[in-house]
């Protein structure tokens, strides 16, 4: 019994920590796709940029980890604005192929760029004292960082939901996602909304990139590609532009992924793809997407 409890809690806690990370990084991508129908494959590059900003601040300038995460969020959010204004904007009404070509090109540029500056090695950081070691919860022992990841994720999720459901800017964003023309006729400046939402999404990705350093084995140039598929899966399963959907998709996929690898290491990495196929067969628009 105690070993059963041990296993279940292991799968839930580690799966949840991973799910939170997936959500934080993917939510921006989901909004971008839902709001503007723009396939931004360079989303992982913004996450990667956040990781590198965090690493540089922490290990070279001795900035505290939590502050570094905040700075990474702000820096990348602002850096993403010119990309949206000067590059992406021209392709909103163009076919997806054009969008994919542009953004995949950006991924290559970003990989070459960070390799040039930081080199090909993965960068790790020493975590602050309060995040090192583990907590004994009686029935099981967990690394403090995973618990921190879950708490941080929960705070961010709550903040996002509050912002979107209870504030006027949130209402405008939802209106623009649901029906852009109608929102525009009501006097909402969807262009500006999109710029800010895009920056927010990129900033969130950067935050995820920083938070993920410890969980994903360091930040490295191939990050932008390695995790792109999983971010896209989360978005597709959740339904484009749907924050609640993205959250539940991240939750399901994060926990299933961990459980699959824990119980069937031989084929566990594929479980997540099987689930994705299954969900999309039954609901091609995603769990919470509009038909």
């Amino acid at each position: 019994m105690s070993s059963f409890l041990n296993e279940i809690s292991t799968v839930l806690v580690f799966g949840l920590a991973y799910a939170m990370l997936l959500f934080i990084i993917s939510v921006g991508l989901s909004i971008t796709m839902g709001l503007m129908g723009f396939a931004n494959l360079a989303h992982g590059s913004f996450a990667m940029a956040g990781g590198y900003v965090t690493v540089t601040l922490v290990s070279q300038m001795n900035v505290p980890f939590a502050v570094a995460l905040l700075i990474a969020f702000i820096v990348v959010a602002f850096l993403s604005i010119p990309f949206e204004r000067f590059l992406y904007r021209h392709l909103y009404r163009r076919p997806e192929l054009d969008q994919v070509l542009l953004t995949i090109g950006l991924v290559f540029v970003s990989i070459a760029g960070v390799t040039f500056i930081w080199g090909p090695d993965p960068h790790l950081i020493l975590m602050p004292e309060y995040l090192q070691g583990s907590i004994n919860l009686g029935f099981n022992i967990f690394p403090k960082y995973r618990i921190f990841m879950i708490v941080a994720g929960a705070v961010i999720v709550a903040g996002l939901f509050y912002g979107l459901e209870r504030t006027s800017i949130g209402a405008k964003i939802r209106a623009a996602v649901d029906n852009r023309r109608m929102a525009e006729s009501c006097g909402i400046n969807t262009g500006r909304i999109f710029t800010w939402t895009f920056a927010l999404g990129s900033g969130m990705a950067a935050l995820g990139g920083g938070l993920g350093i410890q969980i994903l084995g360091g930040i490295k140039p191939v990050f932008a590609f390695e995790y792109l598929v999983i971010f896209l899966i989360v978005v597709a399963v959740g339904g484009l532009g749907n924050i609640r959907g993205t959250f539940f998709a991240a939750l399901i996929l994060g926990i299933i992924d961990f459980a699959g690898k824990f119980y069937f290491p031989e084929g566990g990495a594929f479980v997540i793809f099987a689930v994705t196929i299954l969900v999309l067969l039954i609901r091609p628009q995603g769990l919470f997407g509009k038909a």
Partner: protein
Amino acid sequence: MKKYLIPALSAAGILALSAVQSDAREYKIGFIGPMSGGAAQLGQQMERGAKLYMKLHKSQLGGHTVKMIVRDSKRPGGPIAKAAAQELITREKVELITGLIFSPNAMSIAPLVNKSKTPVVIMNAGTAFIPNMSPYMVRVSFTMWQSGYIMGQHAAGKLGCKTAVSGYTNYPPGKDSVAAFKKGFESSGGKVIDAIPMGGPAKVPDFTPFFQRAKSKNPNCMYVFVPGGNHAAAVAKTYQALAMRKAGVQLIGPGDITQSSLLQAMGPAAVGVVTASHYNMFLKSAENQAFVKTWQAEYGAKSVPDFVGVGGYDGMAAVYAAIKAANGSKLTADGAMKRLKGWKFNSPRGPISIDPETRDIVQNVYISTVRQKGGLLVQEIQQKFEAVKDKCKELKLGKCGKKLY
């Protein structure tokens, strides 16, 4: 057309004449390694090792020169390396191929070089049976069985582990390494209770689910094989994050998990990890200390050589030996093999030689433990095994006992 024919012919004639007049020959060799992508750091190490040897021994070829043409194998799989080898052989007309980080890279080019009769010096790829795939391959690096088998015996003996779980990156050298460990461990009285495949070599997974699974089996030892580079950096971190040492699980493995160039970045997480390996930068020999010094003089104090760099260095030493033996004539596969079978060299890792029977490396294997000294991590050598041959071929196990060409 005719207009150009005469000048072209005379130009060719002058070229031919000048070639005859000077007896210095340029040997073109191909170097295949991951120069971009996730394993680029391994390619860089290997290339740096090779180029360092070339720089230091430029004048020792009797006026002949070596031109190394570098090709990117990008991923751990076979197809890109194979295409690169094909291009090097047919278009660049290289006389020898070297490099080769990942086992599938080396395996994929075997049928090609068998046909073209191109000699190959393997600088890294460690799956035991690779030299069985071609009569023209020589390996100067290591075999997974050299470290795995000895580690198995050591774990059951000196470390006193009764049970062990092994975790491995799921591709040929990983399967090789855990098979070697199991053989050594169980022949010395231990029992391997679980073997966990931990994803493929192309992408570094989050090791947590696999390590948690290992932890839930309560073994005394956990033997881990992952390819050097990004994978290795994550192993010690995960081991520490899950407090496995406190749970009584000793982390052991081949030298790949304590790669010298990544050791400092692993931090306190790596302290106490025991590995069996043919090289680490802390070896006390005069050859090694001189090697580390020249390396850092060339590439800066921040760069340190690891087993991949030494593989590149020693590999180039073997290439030079073959070229010296050819002495101005074409480098043939038969000639190169004749020279390299039984070739001996005083490497930074200690004396090495090529077994004339198997064309595989014979070398020392060191058991070492990571310790903290001052602010730095070092590897302390506990035991040295001299002139270790590949156990898999000695026991003629599976593919190791067969001719595969």
